[in-house]
């Protein structure tokens, strides 16, 4: 039986690109998983891997996710109890935090303790949103574990596409496995056990992003 990768659809925009990118990366594998875009809690509950995308405002995304009956419960059961590989993307990654401060304070999933706060680079020449290609630096842990590593010694290096005005400040710095620089270090990726998340958009990051997705699809936490 091929694996199933569930990309969670909770009304947060552009899942077409995410789906296409996951299909493209899946095609490179010997045993291609099935990529489904779904809001069905039953499918989410049974999936082998989970992807939580997200664009827009924190509060809207949070509300959209919690508005689907049984979805958060299914996600929690699968990602937290079964501990299947989970990848959050952009606001989907930010939702892992305890809370987000964007147009009010909103509770997140709280799976990786931390707060999502506005980017405030000291240099006024630095524009907000942080939009475009920036280099990602991974730490020692990420070199051998998680979606930046192919599990065989090759570590992703290069640029990824970012577009965000808020960023994830983790309570435990050990959960930040990759950073970029925008007037100071900015969290590019978080990881705790089987739960990973990227601030950048792998589905928009050309070969870098497709490699990261491929690593995620091969990852055994």
């Amino acid at each position, binding site marked *: 039986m091929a694996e199933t990768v569930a990309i969670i659809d909770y009304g947060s925009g552009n899942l077409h690109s995410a789906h296409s990118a996951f299909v493209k990366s899946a095609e490179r594998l010997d045993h291609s998983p099935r990529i489904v875009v779904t809001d069905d809690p039953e499918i989410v509950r049974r999936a082998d891997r989970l992807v939580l995308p997200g664009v827009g405002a924190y509060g809207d995304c949070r509300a959209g996710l919690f508005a689907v009956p049984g979805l958060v419960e299914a996600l929690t059961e699968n990602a937290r109890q079964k501990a299947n590989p989970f990848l959050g993307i952009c606001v989907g990654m930010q939702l892992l935090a305890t809370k987000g401060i964007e147009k009010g304070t909103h509770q997140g999933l709280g799976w990786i303790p931390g707060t999502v706060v506005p980017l405030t680079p000291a240099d006024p020449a630095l524009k907000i949103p942080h939009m475009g290609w920036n280099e990602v630096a991974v730490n020692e842990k990420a070199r051998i574990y998680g979606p930046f590593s192919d599990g065989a010694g090759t570590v992703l290096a290069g640029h990824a596409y970012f577009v965000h005005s808020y960023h994830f400040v983790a309570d435990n710095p050990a959960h930040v496995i990759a950073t970029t620089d925008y007037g100071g270090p900015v969290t590019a990726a978080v990881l705790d056990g089987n739960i990973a998340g990227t601030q950048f958009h792998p589905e*928009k990051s050309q070969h870098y992003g497709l490699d990261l997705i491929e690593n995620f699809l091969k990852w055994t936490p």
Partner: protein
Amino acid sequence: MTLKNRIIPCLDVKDGRVVKGVQFVDLIDAGDPVEAAIAYDAAGADELCFLDITASHEDRATLFDLVARTAEHCFMPLTVGGGVRAVEDIRKLLLSGADKVSINTAAVRDRDFVNRAADKFGNQCITVSIDAKRVSAEGEPPRWEIFTHGGRNETGIDAVEFAVEMAERGAGELLVTSMDRDGTQSGFDLGLTRTIADAVPVPVVASGGVGSLDDLAEGVLKGHASAVLAASIFHFGRFSIAEAKAHLAKAGIPMRLDTA
């Protein structure tokens, strides 16, 4: 480690076809926007822009289809503009696979449309496209005004004030086109680009008038743009994306060169 400046090829699309075609690589069909997009993706363009100049609203289905087909094959940011008048237009484009939608005339007619769009979809996917012409006489302090309908209709609106207001209302990016320079290949209107870029907190994309690689570099160095958009110099094979990036990097501009 720093944010890189972006090079954005822009394809004018009419009735689902690239206007004048793209002749820079061995395309089987020079008029197919999807094929051109794939080629630019492979060439390492940092983003891609489609500008739909289809006259009738009925032919929009063609645009949604080509955006969807592009998003299936290109894993890079895509901005789509032209004829965006309602929140529903934006929703359809985003669902088809656009990452950013550019609003032009509709933002001039109804400024609150930008607030509604940004509230609904987030600032990050709302680009306001500003077409401006210099209206001050030679020797006067420079002043620019907004023109719509390809530069034919004057509005009397000050371009810099409008830009500041658009950023406040929720535009996540501004695409600033000099209607004086567009199509002339004589370089950006650097005064216009710089005045707006220095006045707003959001990224500015310079557009209109690129004829050489030096023009691109000046857009960043003297125009203070975060990204530069060009059409004909790429489409007709005068320069490749790689040549453009190498040229800008040599001028000291941070560029993403690891694109293969």
